[in-house]
């Protein structure tokens, strides 16, 4: 009887310790995976930035956007997603003036990830230089017809809602006001 009680006590006392050990081993694994993903994402940044420049976004604009991202301590994954989102937006609607300033402002507002990508896409749709120019030779119609064609699996209905919200805000609000202010600066610098 005493032995049984002792055995039960030993098991009860040992169990939490065992559980803790299991936790200790799984957490570093997660950390390692996150670390690896971050390292690999960082490795892609030069290529993504170059792709954006090759598609007509000014060097200075790309630099400003990246500096803003770094300044806001964006993880490499987030910065990579930002550049990818911008590249898709450029493909759809052409580059915009003051891309860097726009990204900087949105980051300052706290936009990240999907929200930021949606804002970038909306801004490009609103004032992309290639609207109705770049798309036509390829047999593509106006942007409205394209719709969320480029939407990746991550872009669900919720993102569409976000895009709509931003589109409503940009024309009269922060987007246009700021853009015009910096447009003059950009031209004089070139």
């Amino acid at each position, binding site marked *: 009887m005493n032995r049984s009680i002792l055995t039960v006590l030993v098991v009860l006392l040992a169990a939490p310790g065992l559980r803790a050990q299991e936790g200790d081993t799984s957490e570093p694994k997660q950390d*390692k995976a996150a*670390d*690896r993903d*971050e*390292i*690999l994402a*960082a*490795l892609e*940044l*030069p*290529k*993504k*930035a*170059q792709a954006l*420049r090759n598609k007509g976004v*000014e*060097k*200075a604009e*790309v*630099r400003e956007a*990246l*500096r803003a*991202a*770094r300044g806001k301590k964006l*993880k*490499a994954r987030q*910065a990579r997603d930002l550049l990818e989102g911008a590249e898709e937006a450029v493909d759809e609607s052409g580059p915009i003036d003051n891309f860097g300033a726009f990204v900087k402002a949105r980051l300052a507002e706290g936009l990240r990830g999907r929200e930021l990508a949606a804002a970038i896409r909306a801004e490009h749709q609103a004032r992309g230089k290639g609207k109705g120019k770049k798309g036509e030779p390829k047999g593509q119609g106006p942007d409205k017809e394209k719709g969320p064609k480029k939407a990746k699996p991550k872009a669900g209905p919720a993102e569409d809602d976000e895009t709509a919200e931003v589109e409503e805000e940009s024309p009269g609000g922060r987007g246009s006001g700021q853009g015009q202010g910096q447009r003059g600066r950009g031209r004089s*610098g070139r």
Partner: protein
Amino acid sequence: MTRTIVMSLVLATLLVGFGCSQGGGSGDSGTAVPEKVTQAAAIAAEIEASPDQAAAILQKHGMTTDEWTALMYEIAENAEWSDAFEAAR
């Protein structure tokens, strides 16, 4: 006398114009690609060959993940460095 003044003015204008065109660019042109870019490309190649060992590879080269991320940001910001990085990988 007048001709000398005119010639001086033309020369000065040309010199100022040349100076502006050299210094007023995006900041990328004309800068040599530093050694750290080629070193980073070599590390990147190692990482790509063994992605699961990424952290260990960085450690071997005396870098943390944050330092690596900062370096990649820095390279990405510069068009010439990005070209050199991609070419050297």
